[in-house]
């Protein structure tokens, strides 16, 4: 219902030393009409120009501090609030590539009343210099 808004394209920034970035980060909102406990965010798939980045390369932080996706599975006390931006940190040597590149995100949510998982997909063209 909110797929087209889940990546904030203006938020992409490199992380690590400026001359040798070790990754990048961007903010994302939960593509759902309510907040959700982190344990039900089953997967966050990030890709650049169609190339998926490994699950282990991703850290999620809705505020209290970064978690791996595996740690999120049992983070029963933490919730991602409706409309609230969270930060995704992605380890990628060299950081986000220079020039124009496609950044894609898929959120896979375990929604209890639905018979199947819910997928939210967004892709944004990022101009990064």
């Amino acid at each position, binding site marked *: *219902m909110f797929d087209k808004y889940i990546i904030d394209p203006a938020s992409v920034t490199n992380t690590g030393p400026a001359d040798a970035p070790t990754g990048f980060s961007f903010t994302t909102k939960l593509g759902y009409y*309510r*907040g959700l406990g982190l344990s039900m965010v089953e997967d966050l798939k990030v890709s650049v120009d169609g190339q998926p980045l490994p699950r282990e390369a991703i850290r999620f932080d809705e505020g209290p501090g970064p978690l791996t996706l595996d740690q999120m599975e049992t983070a029963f006390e933490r919730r991602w609030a*409706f409309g609230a931006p969270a930060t995704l940190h992605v380890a990628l040597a060299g950081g986000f590539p220079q020039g124009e590149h496609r950044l894609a995100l898929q959120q896979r949510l375990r929604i*209890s009343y639905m018979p199947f998982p819910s997928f939210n997909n967004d892709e944004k063209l990022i101009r990064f210099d």
Partner: protein
Amino acid sequence: MKSKIQRGVSLYSFQEEMFLGQMSVEDVVAFSAGIGARAIEILPEQNMPTFPNVSDAQIAQWQEMLARHGAQFSAYDMFLDTKVRKDRLMTDEEQVASIHRDLRLCHRLGIRNMRVLIFVRPDILEKCVPLAEELDVHMGVEVHAPWYLDHAWIQRTIEVADRLRTKHLGILPDMGIFMKHYPPVMRARYERQGARPEVTQFIVDSHEQKIMCEYTIYEVAVKLQGNKAEVAMAESLRHNPYANPKRIGDFAPYFRHIQAKFYEMTEDCRDPSLDYEAVIPELVKAGWEGTLSSEYEGNRWIQDVQPVDSREQVRRQHVMFQRLIERAEAALQPAPQQTAA
């Protein structure tokens, strides 16, 4: 006869603007009160960022805010995360505990109607009836398409309520079950996704004739070799039934709140899809007391091509409500007494 139907809104209606940070909950309440929709339905998991931890001070702030605008709460939409764990479903005890948590917060908010998700098992709700009675909260199982009033799953809840002779368990209809015509906004989006107009016309015609959806899906998927958007549109028929509005009176004792779903209102304040023209007279005739709570769900069908204006859509729906309620009231006036010549 003056009906006792109240008009209200669900905060769900403004999800687009609230998600994007363009409206706060107070903006929504102020707008709604301004169009006479003073009964506010809340989704705590959407509208209370610290849920499930909500302090008395936060509750007092909500109440003060509502009072400032002459509004009050009407209903509380609960959720139940049976799949909170990856490895197993919640046990029955955990489900009851989660619903108890919601009943208590609902009560603390001063709300007497709780919308229960339709997938919650009737036997679990049965276990929650004692607390619902103690707190005087009505648990209304949301009758949401593709279910409908007479569906066997809904009958199970009615059976429990009857057997327990409780006034605190029943239903809560979502007006999406009364889809008389296929929504133009849905058709248009499937066409933007590549569905051919002759195929979408076939699907709309089939829906109009109330042909059972599996025939249409097979025709589109197999015989017409439909593309992805066409098959998806045909499959949407599974979720868009037209229930009989004349059954409303029979079920009226079991509900106190209605989610007045809609996908689009036209400029002349008509719903091109859902059969409010038939539903509202039935509610008035039944003498039903409760809230018609706007639930606008059109944003997801148009946001790819145009800005969403939930305020204007909700405003138009309330113009329609007023028109239809007044007309139904007038139709029930006793005929003038004939005086003997």
